[in-house]
């Protein structure tokens, strides 16, 4: 399945506080469950997820086994200038997931008419 999906508000003005939503596709195996043959399923959770904006870290999470599969991360940022959001996460199997997404910040006095 695909790796992750991201959601930002359609229009972000300078100075706005806006919500970033990231849905990551991950089984988040807790290590406590057994499969159909009664063998333990090895623990595999996302250990660390970071978000950098223009190479400055703006968000970090360290989930554990208490977090369900396909976790949703939500946090707020203040819009200063346009750039690139870069998400990176590592799980117990040392698999690395990445997502890059452009961030467009419009000047504070932009008209409220929707784009085109």
């Amino acid at each position, binding site marked *: *399945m695909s790796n992750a*999906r991201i*959601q930002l508000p359609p229009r972000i003005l300078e100075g706005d506080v806006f919500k970033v*939503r990231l*849905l990551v596709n991950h089984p988040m195996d807790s290590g406590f469950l057994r499969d159909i043959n009664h063998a333990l399923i090895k623990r595999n959770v996302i250990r660390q997820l970071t978000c950098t904006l223009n190479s400055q870290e703006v968000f970090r999470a360290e989930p554990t086994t208490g977090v369900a599969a*396909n976790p949703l991360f939500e946090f707020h940022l203040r819009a200063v200038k346009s750039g690139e959001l870069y998400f990176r996460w590592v799980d117990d199997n040392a698999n690395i997931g990445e997502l890059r997404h452009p961030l467009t910040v419009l000047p504070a006095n932009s008209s409220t008419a929707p784009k085109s």
Partner: protein
Amino acid sequence: MNLGRQMFAAFWLILGLGLILPDLHNTASAQQRQIPLDQLQSGLAFSSQEVKGLQLDDDFSSLSAHGIDKGAQLWNKAAGNSNKSCASCHGEVTDSMKGVSASYPAIDKATGKLFNLEDRIRQCRQKNQKAPPWALESDESLAITLHVNTASKGMPIKVNIEGAAQKHFRAGEKLYFTRQGQLNLSCTQCHDQQYGRRLFNDKLSQGQPNGYPIYRLDWQYLASLERRLRFCYASIRAELPAWGHVDMRNLELYLKWRAEGLPIEVPAVRK
């Protein structure tokens, strides 16, 4: 002489009617709906507030979101010896596949078999894309079916049960009313006669097929209607048919006819 002829004709007429009428009667009873169309309810109506919330609150963080994304990727991905993607022939899914999943299962013209949506995609992949078909219930099969489903969101179910589909419809209807398994139950006993009442801690639904492939919380995964039907079979301790068995397609056709007019739900969540 003339009177004799008339009586002779009347005799044959009555005999003929006698032969025809039982058949007419059968047809009428087959069309009789156990649940009137205006009382049809999606499985969502029998779900708890929490499950309703999971389905309705937010499409972005929907439990099926990754499946939908993957389906969209597969739609545009070239594959097989033809090196074509679904989009190469069909274009945008929202245009070309509009209403398609609301009209399946349907008879395949080439083979004369009853195909559900998964079968149709498998065949298209094999015949036109010249690629190995995805196994039923594989991630790919579920994802692409879900993606095609999104084009029919909110559209009413309407299947064709005439012509070559009629015998499948009859067989599906018969199966629906047949008691089977160690519990000796038929579909109708729960889903027509007892819906709305509780089975253990859950409300029995009408068994409507309008949201598949669903995300099922019990399995923590996407699931096709066939998998759900197999689960029902197992629950009444009935013998499971092979995957893709025509019985399952017949039953699916009957269920879709029974759900005529219910809107397609995408993405759907069930417990």
